[in-house]
C-alpha cells in the first residue's frame, strides 16, 4: 500500500490544526489586551 497519501494527510492535519489554534490564541490575546489597554487609557 502506498503510504504517502496517509503521510500527507497526517502532516496537513497536524500543521493545519497547530496553525489554527496558534492563530486563534494570538488573535484572542491581542484583542483582549487591546480592550484592556483601551479601558485603562479612558480612565
Amino acid at each position, binding site marked *: 500500500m502506498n*503510504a504517502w497519501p*496517509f*503521510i500527507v494527510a497526517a502532516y496537513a492535519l497536524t500543521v493545519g*490544526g*497547530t496553525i489554527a489554534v*496558534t492563530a486563534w490564541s494570538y488573535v484572542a490575546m491581542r484583542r483582549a489586551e487591546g480592550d484592556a489597554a483601551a479601558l485603562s487609557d479612558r*480612565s
Partner: protein
Amino acid sequence: MHVYANPARFLKIARPLTAWLGWAGGAMILAALAWGLFYTPPERLQGESVRILYVHVPAAWLAMAGWSAIAAASLAQLVWRHPLATIAARAVSVPGALFTALCLATGSLWGRPTWGTYWEWDGRMTSMLVLLFLYAGFIALAGAEKEKGGEGRLTAIFGLVGAVNLPIIHYSVTWWNTLHQGQSISFVRGRSSIDGSMLWPLLVSALGFSLLFGAIVLMRMRAELARNKVEARMKRMVAP
C-alpha cells in the same frame, strides 16, 4: 511558586517568553518536519509510514503532558489557592484537547498502511480516546463554572481525578497484550530502541511542538488575564 501569583509579575515574564517560545518552537517544528519527511530513511518494517511518527509522537506526548499540567494546576488551586492556577488549567485544556485529537487522527492514518486498520479497541488507543473525552468534559465544566461565577473547585477536582487515566495510558502497552507497539524510549533508563537517524528528528519535533505549546498556553493565559481585568473594571464602573 507564589512569587508568580502576582499577575503583573507573571506578565512581565510571560510577554517576552511568549514570542521567544513561539518563534523557537515554530523554527524547530519546520526543521524537524522537513528532516523527517525528506532526509530520514524508511523503516525496515513500517516503510515510509514511519514518517507519520514525527507528528504522532509529539502529539501523544503533549496530550499527556497537557493533562499532567492540568492536574498540577488543579492541585495548586485546591491546596494553595494559587490565583493563576485556574487560568493556567483552562489555558492548557484547549491545546491539550487539540493534540489529543491529532494524536488519535495521525495514529489512525499510521495504522491503516501499517496494521491494515484505522482503529482497533486496543488499550492504548481506547485510553487515549478516554483522555479526549476528559478534555471535552474539563472544557465544558470550566466554562459552566466560570459562567456561574464559581471558583472552579469542581473543575479542579475533575482535573485531579482525570489524572488517573495517565498511568493507564502509559502502562497500557505493558499491562495488556495490545496491537500498539511497546515503549521505544525510556527517559528514566536513558535508553531508546530507535535508530539515531530517526530518533533525533523525533526529539527535535517533540521539543519544537512543546515550545510552541508553551507559547499557546501563555497567549491564552494573557488573554484571560486581560479579559478578567476588563470585567473587573467594568463592574467597578457600573457599581453605585
